[in-house]
């Protein structure tokens, strides 16, 4: 669905992208992760046709992306900034885009109901909370039933409940066949939603794969055991997952009834990012 091959983009002397290559399959949720300034938004702007790459190839649905009006009917974009017409109502905002795309205005009520915002239809956008505005942005991108959805930090700055609603809607859309390209620096979000992820740092892809595979690849091979100490305090111990010595230790603790809990101690995507790049995500 999306193909990127040896993509470069420079702004003057500054290289924003230094030869990135990846593809996204139809029906996938693909997470594109990296700290601010890593090249996420530049990649997204190239894929949505807003920027011309310095070199390399970027195609969506086998179409070159730059300034391609044919493509605009098949993609939906949720930008990072909340760029709605603040003086218009929710309905007027959405009607405007329905008219531009010549799509069915009944979609407005359908999607507003999906995100439980039907009561806010006549509300002026500037009176909405950030979470509600984010939901309107998402609906705006969906009105014309796009095949590919590009989301740039869709839950940035939202409270957990609002973020959760957005996540559920993204998952629901994906279950209906929409391919999703998601940029984020929120590892939990990506872990929860994405089939595959790519880490980008300083304009280069430094790791890519399924979240579960990456966690296995970078697993530390030990488990964290919380034990009751002599005075019933909790003591943290780590044991290797291989070897007779670990088995003996664990068996002994179980016999003594000292084990409070055992944790797999697998790395999070954030841990993997730090391990790969040597720096934090945010």
């Amino acid at each position, binding site marked *: 669905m999306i193909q990127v091959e040896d993509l470069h983009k420079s702004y003057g002397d500054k290289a924003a992208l230094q030869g990135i290559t990846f593809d996204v399959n139809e029906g996938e949720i693909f997470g594109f992760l990296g700290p601010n300034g890593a090249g996420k938004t530049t990649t997204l702007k190239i894929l*949505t*046709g*807003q920027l011309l790459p310095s070199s390399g190839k970027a195609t969506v649905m086998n179409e070159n992306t730059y300034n391609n*009006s044919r493509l*605009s*009917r098949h*993609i939906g*974009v949720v*930008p990072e*900034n909340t*760029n*709605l*017409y*603040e*003086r*218009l109502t929710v309905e*007027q905002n959405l009607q*405007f*885009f329905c*008219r*531009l*795309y*010549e799509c069915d205005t009944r979609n407005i009520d359908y999607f507003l109901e999906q995100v439980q915002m039907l009561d806010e239809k006549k509300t002026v956008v500037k009176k909405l909370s950030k979470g509600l505005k984010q939901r309107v942005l998402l609906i*705006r991108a969906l009105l014309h039933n796009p095949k590919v959805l590009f989301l740039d930090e869709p839950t940035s700055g939202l409270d957990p409940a609002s973020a959760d609603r957005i996540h559920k809607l993204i998952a629901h859309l994906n279950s209906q066949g929409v391919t999703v390209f998601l940029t984020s620096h929120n590892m939990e979000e990506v872990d929860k939603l994405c089939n595959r992820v790519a880490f980008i740092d300083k304009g280069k892809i430094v790791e890519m794969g399924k979240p579960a595979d990456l966690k296995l690849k970078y697993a530390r091979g030990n488990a964290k055991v919380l034990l009751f100490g002599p005075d019933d305090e909790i003591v943290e111990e780590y044991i290797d997952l291989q070897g007779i010595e670990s088995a003996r230790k664990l068996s002994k603790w179980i016999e003594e009834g000292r084990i409070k809990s055992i944790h797999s101690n697998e790395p999070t995507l954030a841990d993997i990012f730090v391990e790969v790049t040597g720096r934090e995500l945010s």
Partner: protein
Amino acid sequence: MSSISRIKAIFIKETQDIKTNSNVILMFIIPILLTLIYKYMIQGMPEGLAVTFGLLFLAVMIGMYVPSMIIAEEKEKKTLQVLLLSPAKPVEVFIGKGLLTFISIIVFGILLVAIEGNMWDKLPVVLLALILVSIPCIFIGMIVGMLAQNQMATGGIGFPIYMLFLMLPLLTVVNEGNFLARIASVLPTFHFTQILYKVFFSEYTFENLYIHFLAIIASCIVIFGLLYVVYRKKGLEQ
């Protein structure tokens, strides 16, 4: 999907948006107030002068200010970004945005002539001149909107231009031959003022007006060329 329906969509949106935009609404009220004040509050004002001021202000300040603010606001609030991601082409965005200003100028122009009264026989010529002069004025407003990074910046870039197009024709209206008038003669608003002056204050004929109409048409072409150059260099969104 036709261009017409996308232009119509942008026009409807602009109409809905402008109703609650106090900055722009205020600018629409000023030429009416100006005409009313000159007409009824200044003693000895010659008939036709109030509407001349009003119409010139209408063409310059509405024609240039409104499109510049509309474009700069969309850039500032990043709404232009999503508009350009839609099937709407930049030329449709320009037309959709300019159309509301264009229609408003015509409607308010008729209103100003109505305020002046006893001028209905001159309305066709005045309206034709207003229609023609509003086009380069709207183009200039669009250029200012493209050059400005935000709404605040439109003032810094735009006001010297607006003042030039507004004041120079007024200063030279009765002195066609002097140095200032020669400079002013490149401005479409100078020729617009000349048309209004001849229509309202003397006997007008095709012979003494056509040169001014041609000059306005020529300025439309030149300023359109400038708009195209600025668009190619800056684009709508930058």
